């Protein structure tokens, strides 16, 4: 399918809608601009939605001064943070300290190279799209650990160590749950996965969705897994010693990762850009916000868990469930490839419910205890 330009395999332009400019470099330029705009506007919208949403759920107002409904609050924050002094601790490793926010930020941006905004409209329709996402998303951890190490602050180091432990552990259930989707769709390409979803895969993979959501939240430090920047324990975790624009970069990373996770979940489980009436990109944005709302909701409701409980949840709860989910999905794909979706939906929801109940029972009677 792919065309080779100067030795580089790029997607077939014939897949694109006719009004997209053709040619590799035009394509690259247009989509870079699109991705930058998409990420930065949505990150700004996310900070606003999160702060307003938290406000509503906590029976307070949230930001409401800058612009109507406080909609310009992200702009005001950006200006404030740009004008702030950049303080570098005297005993820090300056180069690592400087480089960390950049290293942490770019992977979050790179993920969007394979997120389809509509049929075929993506920067690179890689055949291994989802593998690319999994690989790239872990690189942020390096940046975060650099921040923790380079700051020469004990709180930062504790936060960074927690982050590495969490990412290493949660990568496993995440990948295994994603393979379930790949089995059903029959492709690793993000665009093909969306095309394969005549019904959103959340209906066929309810357990997979939950595992990806939980493990994803743990990887990007969303509450209740925000141990890496637990404000009540280790002040601000890895970014304790950051201020000014470098802090803003980490703030951006946090929301860009949330956006990336929402986009991946929307693409894998909620049918991506597919939907009636509205334009495809708008459907994607709506689904992204739906997933993000779920994150805000859990953030307001749940307290934080402890590091050993975090590990136990990954290795003793999510990992076995992801394996079982994978086995059952494989069995279903092989044994009943032509089964009616509606029967499979009922069967899969029943299996998910039974497994979760059983496993949480086991978890409670001692399986959940670990020594770290």
């Amino acid at each position, binding site marked *: 399918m792919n065309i080779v330009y100067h030795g580089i395999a790029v997607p077939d332009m014939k897949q694109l809608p006719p009004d997209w400019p053709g040619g590799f470099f035009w394509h690259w330029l247009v989509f870079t601009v699109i991705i930058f705009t998409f990420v930065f506007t949505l990150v700004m919208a996310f900070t606003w939605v999160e702060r307003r949403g*938290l406000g509503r*759920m*906590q*029976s*307070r107002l949230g930001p409401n001064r800058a612009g109507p409904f406080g909609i310009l609050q992200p702009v005001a924050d950006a200006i404030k943070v740009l004008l702030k002094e950049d303080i570098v601790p005297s005993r820090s490793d300056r180069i690592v300290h400087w480089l960390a926010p950049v290293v942490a930020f770019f992977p979050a941006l790179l993920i969007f190279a394979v997120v389809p905004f509509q049929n075929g409209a993506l920067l690179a329709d890689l055949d291994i799209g989802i593998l690319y996402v999994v690989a790239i998303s872990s690189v942020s951890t390096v940046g975060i650990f650099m921040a923790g190490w380079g700051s020469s602050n*004990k*709180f930062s180091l*504790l936060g960074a160590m927690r982050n590495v432990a969490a990412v290493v552990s949660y990568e496993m259930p995440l990948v295994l749950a994603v393979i379930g989707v790949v089995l059903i769709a029959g492709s690793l390409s993000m665009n093909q996965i969306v095309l394969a979803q005549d019904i959103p895969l959340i209906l066929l993979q309810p357990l997979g969705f939950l595992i990806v959501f939980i493990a994803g939240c743990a990887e990007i430090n969303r*509450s*209740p897994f*925000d*141990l890496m920047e*637990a*404000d*009540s*324990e*280790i*002040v601000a975790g890895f970014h304790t010693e950051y201020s000014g624009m470098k802090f803003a970069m980490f703030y951006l990373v946090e929301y860009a990762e949330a956006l990336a996770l929402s986009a991946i979940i929307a693409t894998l489980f909620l049918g991506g850009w597919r939907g009636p009436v509205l334009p495809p990109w708008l459907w994607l944005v709506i689904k992204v916000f739906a997933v993000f709302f779920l994150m805000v909701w859990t*953030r*307001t*409701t*749940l*307290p*934080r*868990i*402890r*590091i*050993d*409980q975090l590990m136990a949840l990954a290795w003793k709860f999510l990992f076995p469930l992801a394996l079982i989910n994978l086995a059952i999905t494989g069995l279903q794909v092989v044994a009943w490839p032509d089964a009616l979706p509606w029967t499979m939906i009922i069967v899969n929801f029943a299996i998910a419910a039974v497994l979760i109940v059983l496993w949480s029972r086991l978890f409670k009677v001692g399986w*959940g205890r670990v020594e*770290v």
Partner: protein
Amino acid sequence: MTLKTEPFVVNIGPQHPSTHGVFRLRTTLDGEVIVDVEPIFGYLHRGIEKLAEERTYGGIIPLTDRLDYLASMSNNMGYCMAVEKLAGIEVPERAEYLRVILAELQRIASHLIGVGAFFNDLGAMMTPIVYMIREREKIVDLFEMLCGQRLTYNFMRFGGLSQDIPEEFLPALRKFLDQMPRFIDEYDQLLMDNEIVLARSKDVGVLPAETAINISASGPVLRGSGVKWDIRKADPYSVYDRFEFDIPTGTAGDAYDRYRVKVEEMRQSLRIIEQAVAQLPGGPFRSKVPFLVRPPVGEAYAHIESARGDLGFYLVSDNSIAPYRFHVRAPSLINLTALREMLIGWKVADAIIIFGSIDIVMGEVDR
């Protein structure tokens, strides 16, 4: 290859989001586990006990406001009781009942902050504390109606109160009493059976009943360990012997029990207020007391069950207008002495919630 680890020192505080004021925990950590801990306090020392020796008896009341600033009505009450004992001042019935109502309202307000802050330490992203501050605000509004103040009330006087309650106070209190039980149920629905709350705080920071008694802990910390000891029942003061209420106690003495005891105490306080409002007599709100009290030579000690425990005031008089010695038995400080035993062997995250579950106010610890 064997990797060697070595413990390192982390200073939690004095400027830290969860030290409830300016408190410092000098912890030695092995990875995440606490090997040793040294609590350091005194950052908020204002010399209140010494200041009091230079002031008239009446002038000390505002100082007591600044001890436990989350429960200044209780502090006023304890101090006024000590002076009344010293000088032999009678308190009219109506004043006693109003004092009980105010002290119990204050206990609810203080426990709301205590429980909310505990959940903040658990990392519940502000939600519980904002809900609880919403309810505390109603109590603070009631107090503002009485004395115009919202934090440091300076409302009680020797022999009664500084003024009678305004007529709109009782209807507003009635409204609060009708609403509050539902809100407490709402908090329980949100928090009590939450899986993460249970996993985090059950069996964490256990204080055995024997240790609690040995360090003379009091208040919810002692009762969380299962000891049924409440000054309101054990050494009844004011008119507490006329009301029916229970003393909630925990079983395990862990952080969760201390939180539950506080919530149950709020319910009991509501019960006491209901009864006190029903029995509230008329009459004067203050007995005739000279502006400058000159107690006879002697000493007196009065203690009350404040929100944080056994709050005592000790006064020595040399028959002048200022006390010769003024001492406060601060429950926060004494409960804090259990901290080291409770923390060692737990993780940093547990240390924060154990510390939060003791519910201290630094104004009272450092004085």
